[in-house]
């Protein structure tokens, strides 16, 4: 029979084990991708899969030689930050109005915004393509910035709205008493209070923009193609490609993984911001 103390220790141990198992399970594909990127093509296809092998940097050298990695990476950075910045410019005022000046239709508007996420992207491919063509925006970073802003807008508004909702109205009233206008209210009061939430919104938007592949593959070709397009270019119909594909995927994931790692504290704090209230 276990004592209460032993039982608690066992529970803690089991919960820890479960957490580690889930974490390892989630991390394994990334680990496998990293491992494969150092294999030869024949080792990458080996059955049973190989954990021990002679590592090679050939795949990375091949990518460096064939593709201008930094051009694609710069496009990804510009597009992701551009779309996130533009999205915030609209999401913050929208969330402010919905959180503090709620009307009968606010809830419905929020749900309607979210429902636009349910439309399959391919359904609007031809109209968007024609629009981009008419406006001379095909193969430009601007078109992806605009599309990504619109795609992520519902999530950004929802997230910022949730954080704003948790801020007591009295704080805003106090700032108004001190003579703050709407802009000052947002910039000097709301944003500093909800910076954790805004940071996690920014991070989520950056990750979503970074990983988006459908529109980047369809609307860009030579000049504005981001890293997702570079990854796709390493798949081959006739020839072994898994090792090179893993290497290019590792290079594409690395910046956002490092960025996420550095800012994980803000991300977790932001995501759990409203949960404990």
């Amino acid at each position, binding site marked *: 029979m276990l004592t209460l103390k032993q039982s608690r220790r066992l529970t803690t141990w089991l919960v820890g084990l479960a957490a580690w198992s889930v974490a390892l399970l989630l991390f394994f594909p990334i680990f496998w991708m990293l491992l494969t990127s150092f294999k030869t093509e*024949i080792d990458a296809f080996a059955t049973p899969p190989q954990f021990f092998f002679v590592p090679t940097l050939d795949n990375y050298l091949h990518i460096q030689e064939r593709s201008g990695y930094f051009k694609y990476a710069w496009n990804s950075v510009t597009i992701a930050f551009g779309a996130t910045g533009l999205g915030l410019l609209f999401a913050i005022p929208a969330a402010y109005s919905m959180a503090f000046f709620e009307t009968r239709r606010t809830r419905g508007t929020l749900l309607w915004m979210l429902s636009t996420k349910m439309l399959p992207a391919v359904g609007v491919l031809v109209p968007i393509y024609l629009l981009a*063509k008419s406006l001379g925006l095909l193969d430009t970073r601007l078109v992806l910035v605009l599309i990504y802003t619109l795609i992520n807008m519902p999530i950004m508004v929802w997230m910022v709205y949730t954080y704003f909702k948790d801020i007591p109205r009295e704080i805003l009233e106090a700032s108004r008493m001190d003579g703050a206008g709407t802009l000052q209210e947002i910039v000097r009061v709301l944003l500093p209070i909800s910076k954790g939430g805004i940071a996690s919104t920014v991070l989520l938007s950056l990750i979503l923009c970074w990983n988006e592949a459908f529109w980047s593959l369809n609307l860009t070709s030579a000049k504005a193609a981001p890293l997702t397009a570079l990854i796709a270019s390493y798949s081959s119909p006739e*020839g072994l490609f898994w090792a090179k594909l893993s290497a290019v995927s590792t290079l594409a994931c690395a910046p956002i993984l490092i960025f996420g790692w550095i800012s994980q504290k803000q991300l977790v704090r932001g995501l759990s911001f409203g949960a404990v209230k």
Partner: protein
Amino acid sequence: MPPDTLPRFLVRQGGKDKNNNEFLLPRAAEQECEMNPAKALLAAASLTLGNLALAAQTVTIATVNNSDMIRMQRLSKTFEQQHPDIALNWVVLEENVLRQRLTTDIATQGGQFDVLTIGMYEASLWGSKGWLEPMKNLPADYDLDDVFPSVREGLSANGTLYALPFYAESSLTYYRTDLFEQAGLKMPEQPTWKQVAGFAAKLHKPAEEQYGICLRGKAGWGENMALITTLANAYGARWFDEKWQPEFTGPEWSQALNFYVDTMKQYGPPGASSNGFNENLALFNSGKCAMWVDASVAGSFVTDASQSKVADKVGFAFAPQQVTDKGAAWMYSWALAIPTSSKAQDAAKTFITWATSKDYAALVAKTDGVANVPPGTRASTYSAAYMQAAPFAKLTLEALKKADPANPTLKPVPYVGIQLVTIPEFQAIGTQVGKLFSAALTGQMPVEQVLAAAQQSTAREMKRAGYPK
């Protein structure tokens, strides 16, 4: 910066240069001209430079990540040196994405690409729709007669050539000479499928991870259906009769599919239903397949010691036949074409005539070795040096010479194409039938039921498209 790289909102219409090319005038520069004479002079000078830069036309090439195409990308620096007025932009895409992108771009006249890498299927379909520029008035030294007639015909529609072939392939039987020798077997130059199954039975040792035969099983019109259609052709089957009625319920298809499923279940590798070209290539190269029937392009991969553990133990034979050799080996070509929406058609044509020329073949031979010359398109490629360097070249050449996409089967058919049917509906129909055949291989459905379902779904699609007479 040339004006065509500026964002649209910064520029407006300028005029035409000496080559009659339209150029755009930077708005900011124009405004400066109005304000200050010195700056105006500077702006005029930069505009002149801009016009010079504009004279260098940019050709955007959409291609796939096959080794021959990547080599072309690398060697194209020579082309750019020879043609300083033409700059090349490469867009490498995954095959299915490429097809989708090209279709969207051509259908909407997007003009994103100046050179397209396409197959025989697209060349004739898109050419007949007027989406591709006809390949007329080629330079005399291009020597179009040197290109194999079967390849030229495959890339033509109504007698007009719409694409220039980059490389062409047939299918071959690859086998392990060491295993055959150990077992006292001899592979004939032209085997039958029954013989191949007999060899597979003797060489199948799953306990040692050695499988008798590897064949495509992954569903798709360009995957398992390419192999199974040639196998069915060898058994005398055809996709459609003269009145466009599908023939899956006939005895030929039944024999062919039963043979395929039985052979693969008994002597194939585990999980064969998810194996396509690349998976089988990996299996063969790691020494796990005694035989493999697939594209002739694999010849250079299986004999390449840097990626094959059995590079010096591979033998070659023709693709197996059975009741006929008509359509028993496929023919496919990757080719370069120019969409009508291209804004740099002349420069694009200059590039594709270079990339598919004898000069390019000579350049590859010089820089990468004669064995790496793009195969299957030109008679002149098959020199004594090439035949010696590429042991599979002779068989590929003969298979390509024999191939006749216009008469692909034992019985007459209303369509063109050996391992495919050149109609717009084939992608969808082929993939649907491919899924059913893959289900037969996994044992989800019995063969006769699969064939009945294939007959039903194909007949329905063809009726909807208005084909049956």
